[in-house]
C-alpha cells in the first residue's frame, strides 16, 4: 500500500510537524489523518479519477521538509517572474513556507492581513478557526485530507468588511530542492461583507528534481464581496501538481477564477464552487496548453445551493504531441435553487494525431425552474482558415500559431486585470513559439 509510508511518517514525526507549525493548523490534523488512513489517495478505479492515476506520483522516495530546514534563497535573486508590474509588493511561498525576509512597505487599509498563514493563525485564532479546513471538505478526497495532515504554513489573505484592495496581489510559488520533494501548501482567502480583492498566483520550478505538490486553496466570499483568483502554472515537466480550490459564496458575492496551465508536467486541478447565498455569481475559467507527454485534468464541480445564482464556466485545452487532457464539469442544481442560471463550455483542440482529450459534462438538476446549458467540442485546427492565411503569404507554422493563440483569446478575456491580460497574450504567444517563458538561466529543462 502506497499510503502506508505516509501514515507511518505522520505518526512518527507528529511532534516535529506540530512544533514547526501553529496551533490553528495543528488542530485540523487528527481528523484529516483519520480520514486519510481510511480512504487513502484517489485511484483511477474511481470514476472522477479515471484518466488521472495520481497515486503513482506518491510511489516514490520523496522528502518532506517537516522540520522547516531553511532553504537558503532570496527569491528576488533566484528568480524573475515574467508577470511584472501587477503590484509593487510580491509575496513568496518557497515550497510550502511563507518567505518572510522581505520588509513589506505596503500601505494596506486598516485591518487587512496579507502574508504568512502561521502569523495570522496566531494573531487571529478565532477567525482562522472559523474557516481553515472548514471549506476544503476532505471527507471523500484523500489528497485534500493528506494536505491537511501535513500542511504547516501557507499564504493568507484577509480583507475585512467594506474594504477594497485596489492593486492586485501577487503570490509567487517557488519550488526549490536538492532532492525529490513532496510539498504541501495552503492558501486561505477571506473577503468579508462588501470587501474586494484580486489575487494572482504564479507557480514556478527552479530546480531540476521531481516535485509532488498538493495545494489547497480555500476561498470565502461573504455577502456582496468580490474575489478574483487567478492561477498561472509554469512548472517544469518533473512536477506533479495536485491542486484543489474550494470556494463558498454568500449573497450577491462574485468569485472569478481562472486556472491557466502554461507549462507543466502532470496536473490535476480540482475546483468546487458552492453558491450558498442568493444572487451569487461564479465565473470560472481555465486554459491549458500541453505538449510532449504532459497531462492536464480539470475537474470542476459547481454546486448551486441557493436560488437566483449564476455560474459561467469556460475551459479550453490545446494539446500537441502526445499530451493528454481531461475535463469533467459537474453542475449540481439543488432542489431549492430555483432560477439558477448555469452555463458550461468546454472547447478542446488536438493539434497532433497522438494527443488525446477526454471530456465529460455532468448535469444533475433537482429544481424545475432553471436555465442550464453545456457545450463541448474537441477538434483540429480549421483547415479552411489555415489555407486562407497561407493564401495571403502567411507561413504554415505562423498560421497555426495565430489560430492557436486566437483559440485561447476568450479565456484570457475573462481575466479582470488589464496588465495581466496583456502579459498572458504575450506569454501564450511565447509558449506556442517554444520559447522559454521565464528566467533563461534557471537550468531547468522543461
Amino acid at each position, binding site marked *: 500500500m502506497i499510503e502506508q509510508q505516509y501514515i507511518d511518517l505522520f505518526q512518527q514525526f507528529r511532534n516535529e510537524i506540530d512544533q514547526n507549525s501553529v496551533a490553528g493548523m495543528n488542530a485540523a490534523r487528527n481528523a484529516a489523518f483519520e480520514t486519510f488512513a481510511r480512504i487513502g489517495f484517489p485511484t483511477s478505479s474511481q470514476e472522477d479519477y479515471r484518466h488521472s492515476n495520481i497515486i503513482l506520483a506518491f510511489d516514490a522516495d520523496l522528502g518532506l521538509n517537516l522540520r522547516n530546514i531553511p532553504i537558503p534563497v532570496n527569491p528576488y535573486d533566484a528568480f524573475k517572474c515574467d508577470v511584472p508590474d501587477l503590484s509593487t509588493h510580491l509575496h513568496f511561498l518557497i515550497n510550502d513556507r511563507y518567505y518572510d525576509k522581505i520588509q513589506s512597505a505596503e500601505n494596506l487599509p486598516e485591518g487587512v492581513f496579507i502574508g504568512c498563514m502561521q502569523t495570522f493563525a496566531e494573531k487571529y485564532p478565532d477567525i482562522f478557526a472559523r474557516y481553515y479546513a472548514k471549506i476544503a471538505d476532505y471527507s471523500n478526497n484523500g489528497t485534500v485530507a493528506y494536505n491537511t495532515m501535513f500542511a504547516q504554513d501557507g499564504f493568507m489573505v484577509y480583507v475585512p468588511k467594506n474594504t477594497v484592495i485596489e492593486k492586485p496581489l501577487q503570490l509567487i510559488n517557488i519550488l526549490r530542492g536538492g532532492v525529490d520533494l513532496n510539498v504541501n501548501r495552503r492558501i486561505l482567502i477571506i473577503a468579508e461583507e462588501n470587501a474586494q480583492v484580486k489575487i494572482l498566483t504564479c507557480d514556478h520550478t527552479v530546480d531540476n528534481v521531481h516535485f509532488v505538490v498538493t495545494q489547497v486553496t480555500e476561498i470565502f466570499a461573504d455577502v456582496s464581496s468580490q474575489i478574483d483568483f487567478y492561477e498561472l502554472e509554469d512548472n517544469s515537466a518533473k512536477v506533479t501538481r495536485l491542486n484543489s480550490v474550494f470556494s463558498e459564496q454568500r449573497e450577491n458575492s462574485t468569485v472569478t477564477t481562472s486556472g491557466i496551465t502554461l507549462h507543466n508536467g502532470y496536473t490535476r486541478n480540482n475546483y468546487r464552487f458552492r453558491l450558498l447565498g442568493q444572487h451569487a455569481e461564479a465565473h470560472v475559467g481555465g486554459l491549458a496548453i500541453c505538449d510532449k507527454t504532459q497531462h492536464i485534468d480539470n475537474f470542476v464541480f459547481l454546486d448551486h445551493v441557493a436560488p437566483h445564482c449564476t455560474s459561467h464556466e469556460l475551459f479550453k485545452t490545446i494539446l500537441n504531441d502526445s499530451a493528454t487532457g481531461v475535463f469533467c464539469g459537474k453542475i449540481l442544481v439543488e432542489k431549492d435553487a430555483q432560477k439558477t442560471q448555469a452555463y458550461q463550455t468546454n472547447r478542446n483542440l488536438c493539434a497532433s494525431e497522438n494527443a488525446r482529450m477526454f471530456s465529460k459534462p455532468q448535469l444533475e438538476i433537482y429544481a424545475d425552474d432553471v436555465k442550464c446549458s453545456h457545450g463541448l467540442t474537441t477538434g483540429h485546427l*480549421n*483547415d*479552411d*482558415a489555415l*489555407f*486562407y*492565411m*497561407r*493564401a*495571403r*503569404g*502567411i*507561413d*504554415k507554422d*505562423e498560421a497555426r500559431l*495565430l*489560430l492557436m*493563440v*486566437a*483559440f*485561447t*483569446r*476568450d479565456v484570457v478575456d475573462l481575466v479582470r486585470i488589464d496588465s495581466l491580460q496583456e502579459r498572458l497574450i504575450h506569454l501564450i504567444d511565447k509558449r506556442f513559439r517554444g520559447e522559454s517563458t521565464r528566467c533563461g538561466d534557471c537550468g531547468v529543462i522543461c
Partner: protein
Amino acid sequence: MLQIKNLHAIVEGKEILKGIDLEVNAGEIHAIMGPNGSGKSTLASVLAGNPRFEVTRGSITFNGKDLLDMEAEDRAREGLFLSFQYPVEIPGVSMVNFMRAAVNEQRKYKDEDPISASDFLKLMRDKRELLGMDSQLLNRSVNEGFSGGEKKKNEIFQMAMLNPALSILDETDSGLDIDALKIVAAGVKKLHTKENATIVITHFQRLLEYIKPDFVHVLYAGKIIKSGGADLALELEERGYDWVINP
C-alpha cells in the same frame, strides 16, 4: 506571366479539370465564364495551391517559375492573389494582426525589413478608403460577423494591401448589391496597371460591364471550349451557354 498547359486536377478522386491551356500576360484582364460545376473555382483553388486539390497532369509557370512546385504561401509571396468566393471567418485573429503578418511575410520574402507601425497604419487607411470600408471592420476579427458584401470588399482590400502581380477574383460579384459592386469594381480597376494581370471568374456579365476584359474564356466540363474578346461575354449574356456547349 502565367502559362497553364494541359492542366488536369482531381478532388476526392474525381477529375474536375481535364486539360486546361491558358496564357495570361502582364496588363491583361481575362474573364473565365461558364455554367455551375464547370471547374471555374477549382481552377482558382489549384492556382492558389489549395491542398485539397491534386494536380495529376500538366504544368503551370508563373513568372518563369514552376508554380506547382511552390507551397500556397510562396505563391502568394511571388505575387499571386486569390480573392475567395467564400472568405473564411477567423475568430480571435484581428484584421490588423492578420494584415501585418501578411505584409511582413511578403517583405521578408523580398529581403525587406518589416513595415514600420506608422507606415502600416497609413497603408491600411489609404486602402480602406479606396474600398469605402468602415474603419471599425478592421478592428474586428478576420471576416467575423461581416456581411456578404463586407467580406467581398475585404478581399479586394487585402488585394490592395498586397499589390499582387496576378489577381484571381473568384465570383467576387456574387452576393454584392449594385452599389457595392460598383465600389468593388472601381477598386479593382484602379489597382489594374500595365504590370499586373487579373483573372475574373464570374457567372454573369454584370461585373464585366465595369471591368472590361481583354479576353473571355468559356470553361465547360473541365476544359476551355471557346475563347474570344469582350463581345463574347455579351453574347453569352444574351444567348446563354447552350450554343457554345452544343454547337
